């Protein structure tokens, strides 16, 4: 577990990831959508396909954010881990590194909502949550734009 001083964190917050510009995310997501269409999912029931689209949305979001963020790494790990394949780690192991002190109910809720938020320190959690919210909001706007323009074709 490496330490980062607050100053380092601040400078890394200021410098944006070059891959995470809106057109890049959009193209990545559109490519994923066309893969979904061409794959077997294209002929499946809409709800099953919707799940594939949803997974693609989170995967593209995390891939665009890059490995610098704990939330994107955690999301990609979760998505790439297919259920049933290989040994399943018992849940107790995942919480082994839970921070001391427990934290209040709201902090625990936030830790559950932010991917990878389970065992980072509070300061880091707030930082990751901020970045996650920003990227998630952008992904939603992107999907809304696609739906709007596809509906009007």
């Amino acid at each position, binding site marked *: *577990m490496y*330490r980062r001083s*607050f100053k380092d964190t601040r400078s890394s917050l200021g410098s944006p990831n070059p891959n995470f510009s*809106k*057109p890049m995310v*959009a*193209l990545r997501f*559109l490519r994923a*959508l*066309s893969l*979904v*269409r061409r794959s077997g999912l*294209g002929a499946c029931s*809409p*709800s099953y*396909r*919707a*799940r594939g*689209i*949803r997974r693609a*949305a*989170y995967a593209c979001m995390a891939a665009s954010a890059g490995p610098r963020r704990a939330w994107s790494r955690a999301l990609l790990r979760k998505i790439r881990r297919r259920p049933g394949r290989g040994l399943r780690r018992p849940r107790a192991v995942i919480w082994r590194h839970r921070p*001391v002190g427990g934290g*209040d109910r*709201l*902090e625990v*809720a*936030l830790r559950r*909502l*932010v991917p990878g938020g389970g065992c980072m*320190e*509070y*300061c880091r959690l*707030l*930082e990751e*949550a*901020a970045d*996650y*919210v*920003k990227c*998630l*909001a952008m*992904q*939603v706007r*992107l*999907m*809304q*734009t*696609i*739906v*709007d*323009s*596809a*509906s*009007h*074709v």
Partner: protein
Amino acid sequence: MSSRRNRVVSEEEINELISKLQSLLPETRRRGAGRASAAKLLKETCNYIRSLNREVDDLSDRLSALMETVDTNSAEAEIIRSLLRS
């Protein structure tokens, strides 16, 4: 192993992160002009993340339905154009 593994974070740093988080919430979720209390902000952030997750679900459903009806190959050019415009 009750000692903290990381250094003690100052109140100021936490407050700065909290106000940054507050600035990311949409207007309707920001309570009052002044600095919201940390608890309120965490609550609003949790609610906002939950609503964003729901929106992703909803939009995925709509995209899935559109995929069936719309010929997305021809739609793609128009989609990319409108994305680059926005």
